[in-house]
């Protein structure tokens, strides 16, 4: 593994609705590593991911991906970098005027000159991975929530990005399907050295897929470590979060 981290976030501050949703956040994600970000609903996890792909401009701080500061890139350079960063949105954000097949083929049609048969083949292959074989011609509105989530995942992985940001990829999926997605995330890491940031509430999958786990609480990272370190953490916020207890510093 390359020593230089793939993603370096320094002093990231993001203001939304008049308050700091993220305040001086620092994170490093090594090449080929999977970082899991946990935290309460509304703490700013999706906001963090959106900053990392340049969809939100932070008030302060830098986000360096592959040596480039994403907060300072020109639109054309940002687009170039984005070809290498996949994002799975929390709301699946499928294009509802396109079929599932067209959604999944989107990146290939936009950014490659592959022949149509090849595109069809890749689309079928990716849909099979997320267990949506033969659903190319359906529209997103004809899929269930979980199926949309999986189609959205397929759309993200078709172009083989080196960095993938997953916003709650298993939320709303049954346990078996969740496990399929966890296996997929680990497979992409193993086979293609994909660097991942996974936002999840699912502790089981967090401990399974994460090389590092970071806990976001009240705009800052209160703890970061390996799954073992997190399990043994003495931090009361982390302890309360992973035991799901009603008692502790987190007000419910």
């Amino acid at each position, binding site marked *: 593994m390359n020593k230089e981290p793939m993603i370096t976030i320094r002093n990231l501050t993001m203001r939304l609705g008049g308050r700091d949703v993220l305040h001086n956040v620092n994170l490093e994600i090594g090449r080929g590593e999977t970082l899991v970000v946990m935290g309460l609903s509304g703490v700013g996890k999706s906001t963090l991911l959106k900053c990392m792909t340049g*969809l939100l401009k932070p008030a302060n701080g830098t986000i360096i991906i592959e040596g480039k500061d994403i907060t300072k890139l020109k639109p054309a350079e940002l*687009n170039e970098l984005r070809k290498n960063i*996949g994002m799975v949105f929390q709301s699946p954000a499928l*294009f509802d005027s396109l079929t599932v097949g067209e959604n999944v083929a*989107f990146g290939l049609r936009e950014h490659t000159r592959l022949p149509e048969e090849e595109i069809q083949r890749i689309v079928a292959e990716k849909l099979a991975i997320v267990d949506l074989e033969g659903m190319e011609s359906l529209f997103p509105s004809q899929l269930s929530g979980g199926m949309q989530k999986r189609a959205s995942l397929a759309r993200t992985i078709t172009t083989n990005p080196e960095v993938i940001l997953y916003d709650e990829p298993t939320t709303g999926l049954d346990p078996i399907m969740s496990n399929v997605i966890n296996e997929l995330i680990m497979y992409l890491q193993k086979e293609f050295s994909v660097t991942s940031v996974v936002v999840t509430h699912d502790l089981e999958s967090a401990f399974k897929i994460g090389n590092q786990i970071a806990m976001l609480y009240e705009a800052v990272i209160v703890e970061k470590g390996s799954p073992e370190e997190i399990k043994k953490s003495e931090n009361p916020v982390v302890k309360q979060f992973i035991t799901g207890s009603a008692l502790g510093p987190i007000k419910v």
Partner: protein
Amino acid sequence: MLIIIEDFGLSVIRLFEYIGGLVFLFLETLGWIGRGSIRPRLTVEQMAILGVNSILIVVVTTAFAGAVLSLELAKQAVKFGVGRYVGGGVAIAMIREFGPMLTAIVVAGRAGSAITAELGSMKVTEQIDALMALATNPVRYLVVPRFLACIVMIPMLTMFANLAGTTGGGIVAYFLAGIEPHIFLNSIKNTVILSDLWRGLDKSIVFAAEIALVSCFQGLNTTGGAAGVGQATTGSVVYSIILIFISNFLLSAWLFPIH
């Protein structure tokens, strides 16, 4: 009092921000078109949608507008014994003013609102974010095809509108004022010159740009969920119509000066 002034100041700032946003979108759109970054398939698709959505309502509204115009004109003209000039009057009014204006207003209500609703709902469901995350520029992918479709289709619809309005006028002139069709047509031939047609179409190109930019801008800047989409759509129609009226006056004063 201070609050009123402050409020007023704030709205003026917002107005300029809004106009600035429109101008910026216009320049960006022209930039993509200038670089030849046009998606033929998407553009043709939008042209088809716009044409199909609007042709019937454009033809019906302008036919009746021409009819009512002819009704009023013919009444007066026949009274003064100049019924043979009605055709020219109706045609000039249609081709210079009512054809381009009514078409633009109808399209703003029918197709402009649809554009805002579509882009607005894409915005609030994060599809625009997804587009950008997939390294695709939303102006290039969404705005340019819609802009070009408006620029091509609205003048075409305007020609249909001119034809429908004049025909409507002719029919009314014949049945209600007894003006023979050949007299009506002759009057048109003697009055209308080709440059009237071109100038009318020039106006409709300006209206088309206004409709496309306002409706796309409103859509791309939608916030606040489904309710926000409704507000953005209403705003799109209102702002388009205001712009059409203002620019129509300015263009008419410039293109058709009083000698």
